[in-house]
């Protein structure tokens, strides 16, 4: 609990970054399972979110061994970009942003969802939750940085 203790603070930071890594790795494999195994079509917005998500698996892992507190900076930017894209798509699916301005032209509308867990967890919402949680974890890891 004592942020003043540098060793303990670094340990807490490591755990948080590790949890973020577990999260993004699960999300990455999950998205690959949807598209490659279940053959769910991937819309353009989903690809943009993947571009932000997939590198996190590698970047966070590198930042863990040895623990590099600066990994939060590199990963944080990607998580922020992914979060913005995810919230855009969630609003699109919810119909708050009109379909007209959606960038999908390949015959796969981004406002169409294919997988729904528990009635509301579609893929864009999962992506949004993942980026949000990742961002929070990284933020806390950043706060733990011994000054």
């Amino acid at each position, binding site marked *: 609990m004592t942020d003043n203790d540098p060793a303990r603070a670094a340990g807490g930071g490591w755990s948080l970054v590790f949890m973020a890594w577990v999260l993004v790795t*699960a999300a990455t494999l999950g998205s690959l399972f949807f598209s490659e*195994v279940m053959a769910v079509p991937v819309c353009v917005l989903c690809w943009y979110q993947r571009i932000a998500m997939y590198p996190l698996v590698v970047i966070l892992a590198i930042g863990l*061994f040895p623990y590099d507190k600066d990994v939060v900076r590199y990963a944080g930017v990607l998580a922020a970009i992914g979060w913005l894209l995810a919230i855009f798509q969630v609003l699109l699916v919810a119909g708050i942003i009109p379909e007209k301005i959606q960038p999908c*032209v390949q015959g796969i509308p981004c406002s169409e969802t294919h997988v729904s867990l528990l009635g509301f967890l579609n893929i864009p919402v999962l992506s949004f939750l993942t980026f949000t949680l990742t961002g929070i974890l990284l933020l806390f890891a950043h706060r733990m940085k011994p000054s």
Partner: protein
Amino acid sequence: MNRKTLFVSVAGLFVLVFVMLTLIYQNYQGSLQGRSANANQSVVERQGAPIKGPVDARVTIVEFFDPACGTCADFYPLLKKLIDQYPGKVRVMMRYAPLHSGSDQVVKMLEAAHLQGKFWPALELLFKNQPRWIVNHVSQPMRARGILNGLALDHKKLDTDMNQTSVTQAIQQDVKASQVLNVRATPEFFVNGRPMPSFGFEQLSELVKDAVADAY
């Protein structure tokens, strides 16, 4: 040391779970496909849908297609070749799956042309001229209609038929069937109710070869 062990075991666990879920899913899909292969027949085919080839052929290739789909146009020569390759034994049935935006209007034109017995020439014309009426993967119904002006048919009737209930109902039935059959991309083929194991020219040819061997 502890952290490394933790990391490696979690990573290993991820890979293991992914592979296991993949195998389970594929196994499940496989059993589903085998069971529904023939039960599906009534959903796969629609009476009155456009047919090419002998009516009494025992092998039916059903294609769910979008006139704006480039791959559908690429498959068209192969379909003609398959009909010729097994004379009297293979026919092709076309069903609408207008996935591109704007295509819903274009398939209405095709179905209206079908009422005048001009489905195939209309389809060939649209396939051949795809770049002229599809802009950035979006169908332009007005342009498609312009291209169909080149056909010898009753154009006034075509325009009124487009919005006739029998036309919209036929298309609706196809769209519903495509949803039941999980058609998410075009073209999707069913040969006597059996889908392709994986996508490709070769796979379709093989499937037809097997179906002909089974039926004759």
